[in-house]
């Protein structure tokens, strides 16, 4: 029965988390070092930072940057990906550009953006977008190349408008690729965003982590990290999973 399987999986997940915490606790007690605080100390730090409003503020700032740069990268990336996937000449022309941009280290783009545009918000966002964009383009391009010609012909013979063709014939086929780009994108962007903040902003998670590093404040460092991981998990559970279920319900 599925309910028993579900129950068993939840139990397993709880057990594995407990085991991880137990190992951490054991190690911390054994080492007795300020560089590895116990889970209880980290939890207390988390609580304090939340109550003082410091953690929510920096987390909020970073999330805002994440949403803006993610949306820009997805929007521009989808548009370019669809165009390249459908146009062999443009694709052949820009393929080298893509390979170059895919292989520029994130740190280089970040430094270049700050050098060229100054230590400003738009430079930070631009650095993240430029880092993420090639990945989105490559993923969506694959999807656009794999579009079902039969269905496009059907749409053409029944005189579908361009809008209707895009919404009901093309977009549902691209959806799995968009979701893949979204998932890998979120994971990539939040890592890059911390470096961007560390190097050139005076707020956000990256900036805070930088300060904790200078103060050797490992408890705060861990507390902030867990808060961030929790938020990303929540996005997956509350937004991406339900979206998947809703749009994939036609599959057998």
């Amino acid at each position, binding site marked *: 029965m599925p309910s028993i399987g579900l129950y068993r999986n939840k139990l397993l997940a709880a057990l594995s988390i407990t085991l991880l915490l137990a190992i951490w606790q054991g190690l911390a007690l054994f080492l007795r070092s300020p560089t590895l605080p116990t889970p209880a100390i980290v939890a207390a730090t988390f609580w304090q930072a939340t109550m003082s409003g410091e953690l929510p503020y920096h987390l909020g700032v970073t999330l805002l940057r994440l949403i803006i740069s993610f949306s820009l990268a997805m929007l521009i990336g989808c548009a370019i990906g669809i165009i390249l996937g459908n146009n062999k000449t443009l694709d052949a022309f820009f393929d080298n550009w893509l390979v170059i941009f895919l292989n520029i280290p994130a740190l280089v783009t970040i430094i270049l953006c700050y050098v060229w545009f100054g230590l400003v918000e738009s430079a930070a966002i631009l650095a993240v977008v430029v880092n993420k964009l090639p990945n989105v383009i490559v993923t969506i391009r694959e999807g656009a190349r794999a579009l079902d010609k*039969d*269905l496009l*012909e*059907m749409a*053409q*013979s*029944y*005189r*579908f*408008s361009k809008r*209707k063709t895009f919404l*009901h*014939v093309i977009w*549902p086929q691209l959806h799995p690729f968009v979701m893949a780009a979204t998932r890998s994108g979120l994971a990539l962007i939040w890592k890059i965003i911390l470096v961007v903040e560390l190097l050139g902003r005076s707020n956000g998670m990256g900036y805070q982590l930088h300060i904790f590093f200078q103060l050797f404040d490992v408890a705060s460092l861990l507390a902030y990290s867990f808060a961030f991981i929790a938020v990303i998990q929540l996005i997956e559970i509350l937004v991406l999973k339900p979206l998947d279920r809703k*749009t994939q*319900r*036609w*599959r*057998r």
Partner: protein
Amino acid sequence: MSDIRINISNKTYVLAHDTEQFHHAIADLDFTVHPQQFVCLVGPSGCGKTTLLNMIAGLDPHFEGQINIGQATQSPTIGYVFQNPRLLPWLTVRQNIEIVFDDKPPTSLIDNLLDNMQLFDAQHQYPERLSLGMQRRVSISRAFAINPDILLMDEPFVSLDAPTARQVRRLLYSLWQKRPHTVLFVTHDLREAIALADRLIFLSPSPMRIVSDIEVPIAREQRTDEGCVEAFREQLLQNHPKISELL
């Protein structure tokens, strides 16, 4: 609705882009289909029948010649039943029919159609959960729903088992009698062609041209009689020995 005039002098396509090998698909094809005529195009597989339907549907504009359909002022509506059903898998049966309308889809007309095609109970299901026979019926319903001036059907019953094919053929026929359109029906089943068509056009292997153009004089009410269809078939094959080579 006026005649469909098909006059194609040449249709070739490239087989492989690197070797520039050409396939000569159609040469000098010239015929006219009258309004509300049910025409069966019979020919061996690979002779270019699907290519011809695609050209009429406007999906393949690369050919030498002309296809004139109806009035010059207004482009005719075309219902196309493809060889595979080509339903949108993320839409339900009903949505797949509704989507071909630009405005609000006519509820009662679609209800009627679903009922006629025995799809009413399956209307909220997704295509992948249906049998191929049901998917084909959805695809035929979709083509009928827009009340097309021209109905193009590309072997719509191939790979259906005989009883299902017979059932869908009957449904198609009764729908067509209620609302006659011009039909171009591709098949290589001569019995099926005789049972359905006003006129049979036999086509040669590529480059495709017309081998024979024959009216079917059997009265509509006699078409369901298999003996009658069989007798006509045998007579046809006797009088036109070339035809049997095409089947």
